[in-house]
């Protein structure tokens, strides 16, 4: 009985189609369709998950998709423990965010359009993780990108939003180019794109081939999951509505890269080099983005850089072979980062659209529920015992330490310190201290409606209990790890409990130190709004400008390419060809005045070009 598997994507697809085609009819009632669709999808996912829980692998096949010669691919899906976990996260968090959006977007003129896109995204994302071959994966890889693009630019009348949407798309195209080439190469190398065939063949693949394919695939992951050097789009993506940032740019879509690397781990392991690259890029991004997060003044940008950084942690984990730890961090991150974004959304909603931390302060008085849940989220992100973030991050750190990657481990610990610092810097700046907003805004500040606070509470509960429930490492790994064991076929080897405990203590100390520092700088000391976010030193300036990566890309890539295009348009068609013609003409006038009339106009120029082409063709064929 495989119908329930199809129900998972079918519900949101139906919702999207209804709201897209009859948006004018549904209007304000769009959420009556969209939210139940997500609930249905979530329940179907639960039903499927319960079967997976009992050790079953659920598969279903819709129809043969491509049948040509030696190459066949079907539209088919499979649910193993990894996919099951992803499905629960996507539909579960997705459902909460849909509920939240009802309150958050209730005044927006594009209400139906918003829910249509959001449903479409959930459909694409569930299909992405359900896919049982690389081609289907690629299709929905592009589809989620499209939804992301549409939702980033949702408020297209704002130039910044339109610009951010375009940037996201272009940067992702660069990554997808690699991904597409990787998939194509796989097809050439293996002759099939089904996961089962590919991973069977990967075992005996040339390591060099495996390396190239894996690196190309990872390029796609870098784009989608905003890793160096393709991380530039994610902070700008915050121009979209905040629930979108929570769902797509924190909890689900950006983790697709991690999912893909974990899913193809056989291929990456065959290469070895590729895994090291993944680990290196992951750690570099984790630290790099954390440094930028230290100085941001926009509440959503702090969270955006923290997302980039946390994604770096996940890649670091899968790069050192701790797949289950990486996926576990993915899950916990989905909870606490969605919580933080939704909390930030609640703040923005309460403050009438203000996002600048310098103009906040003392919100805890007016927004109790938001403050408490945000606090839990912040502790979760910082990785404080006993919240979920602690367990998942601790496992990554432990894997790095015991895997004898001490340098990586050191960097990740430094990153953890910075994470704790900037998270609580944001928290204190927003909720405590003296109010810094204008009088009118201060008067307006209010707690958000129930539909927005309830998702916050549920996510806060999840952030609190997930770690304790399934994340505590026991003798043979945590329960979560054991559940995923059939996918990764590898358990962390047991290490000395004393060392593990010491690491955990160290981790707690580092996080506490970070929080303490933030407390001293931004709570004990009186915060002066004009001093925050001002470039006082060159280090400050460097971080505030995100290491100038955007400026460098602009100078090195965007501007030259544009110049080249203009040059070719003007110069090639008019200049060079005219130039050749003119040059020829001048040469000819030198010895025959009668040929002066060579330059007769454009038709003749075209004819002459054709003639030159003809001569070259003849010459080429004759001299071959």
């Amino acid at each position: 009985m495989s119908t329930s598997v199809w129900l998972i994507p079918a519900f949101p697809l139906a919702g999207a189609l209804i709201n897209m085609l009859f948006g004018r009819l549904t209007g304000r009632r769009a959420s009556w369709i969209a939210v139940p669709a997500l609930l249905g999808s979530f329940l179907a996912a639960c039903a499927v998950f319960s079967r997976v829980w009992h050790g079953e692998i659920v598969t279903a096949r819709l129809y043969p998709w491509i049948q040509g010669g030696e190459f066949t691919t079907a539209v088919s899906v499979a649910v193993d423990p990894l996919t099951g976990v992803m499905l629960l996260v996507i539909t579960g968090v997705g459902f909460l965010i849909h509920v939240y959006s009802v309150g958050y977007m209730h005044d927006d003129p594009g209400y139906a359009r918003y829910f249509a896109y959001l449903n479409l995204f959930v459909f694409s994302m569930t299909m992405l993780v359900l896919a049982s071959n690389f081609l289907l994966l690629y299709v929905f890889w592009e589809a989620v990108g499209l939804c992301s693009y549409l939702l980033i630019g949702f408020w297209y009348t704002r130039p910044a939003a339109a610009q951010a949407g375009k940037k996201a798309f272009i940067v992702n195209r660069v990554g997808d180019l690699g991904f597409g080439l990787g998939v194509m190469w796989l097809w050439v190398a293996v002759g099939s794109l089904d996961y089962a065939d590919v991973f069977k063949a990967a075992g005996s693949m040339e390591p060099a081939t495996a390396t190239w394919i894996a690196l190309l695939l990872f390029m796609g992951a870098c784009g989608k999951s905003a890793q160096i050097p393709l991380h530039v789009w994610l902070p700008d993506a915050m121009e979209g509505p905040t629930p979108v940032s929570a769902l797509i740019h924190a909890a689900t879509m950006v983790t697709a890269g991690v999912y893909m690397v974990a899913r193809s781990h056989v291929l990456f392991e065959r290469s070895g080099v590729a895994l090291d690259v993944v680990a290196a890029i992951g750690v570099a991004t984790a630290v790099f983005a954390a440094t930028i997060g230290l100085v941001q003044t926009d509440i959503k940008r702090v969270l955006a850089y923290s997302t980039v950084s946390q994604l770096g942690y996940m890649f670091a984990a899968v790069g050192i072979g701790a797949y289950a730890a990486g996926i576990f961090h993915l899950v916990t991150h989905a909870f606490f980062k969605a919580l933080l974004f939704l909390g930030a959304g609640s703040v923005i909603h309460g403050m009438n659209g203000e996002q600048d931390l310098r103009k906040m302060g003392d919100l805890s008085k007016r927004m109790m529920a938001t403050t408490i849940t945000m606090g839990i989220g912040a502790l979760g992100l910082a990785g404080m015992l006993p919240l979920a973030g602690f367990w998942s991050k601790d496992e990554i750190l432990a894997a790095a330490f015991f895997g004898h990657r001490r340098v990586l481990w050191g960097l990740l610990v430094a990153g953890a310190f910075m994470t704790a610092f900037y998270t609580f810097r944001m928290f204190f700046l927003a909720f405590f201290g003296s109010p810094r907003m204008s009088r009118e805004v201060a008067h307006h500040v209010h707690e958000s409606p129930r539909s927005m606070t309830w998702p916050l509470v549920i996510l806060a509960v999840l952030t609190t209990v997930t770690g304790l429930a399934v994340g505590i490492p026991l003798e043979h790994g945590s329960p979560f790890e054991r559940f995923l064991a059939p996918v990764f076929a590898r358990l962390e080897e047991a290490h000395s409990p004393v060392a593990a405990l010491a690491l955990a203590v160290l981790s707690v100390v580092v996080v506490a130190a970070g929080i303490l520092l933030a407390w001293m700088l931004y709570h004990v000391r009186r915060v002066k709004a004009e001093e925050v976010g001002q470039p006082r030193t060159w280090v400050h300036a460097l971080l505030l400008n995100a290491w100038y990566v955007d400026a460098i890309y602009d100078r090195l890539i965007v501007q030259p390419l544009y110049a080249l295009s203009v040059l070719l348009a003007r110069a090639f068609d008019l200049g060079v060809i005219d130039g050749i013609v003119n040059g020829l003409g001048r040469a000819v006038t030198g010895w025959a005045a009668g040929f002066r009339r060579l330059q007769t106009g454009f038709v003749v120029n075209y004819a002459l070009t054709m003639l030159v082409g003809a001569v070259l063709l003849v010459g080429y064929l004759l001299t071959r």
Partner: protein
Amino acid sequence: MGGVGEERRSLPPTSNDPVGLNAYLILAALVFSVGLAGVLTRRNAIGILLGIELMLNAVNINLAAFSRFGGDLTGVVFALFTIAITVAEMGVGLALVIAIFRARRTVEADRLDLLKG
């Protein structure tokens, strides 16, 4: 039925032709080149048309010569097709020239530069 056709296509042998095939080919090439030069040097649309006409006639010389020396009638038949089509082309071409003259009061090819880039 095919046999009859094959027979009808052959021509008498041509061994005692005073000038060889190459002479015709060179003549055709020359005519073609003259036409080409005309196309490339004329400013007037009609002048260009005349150049193209010469190029097409060079083709006919070639076809007839190959037919004669290869002993296959196809070439001559083809030349008939070419002539017919060329006439149609020139008809269309002159009509276009008139149309453009009405709209622009000129048939200079180098004035046709509204569309470029």
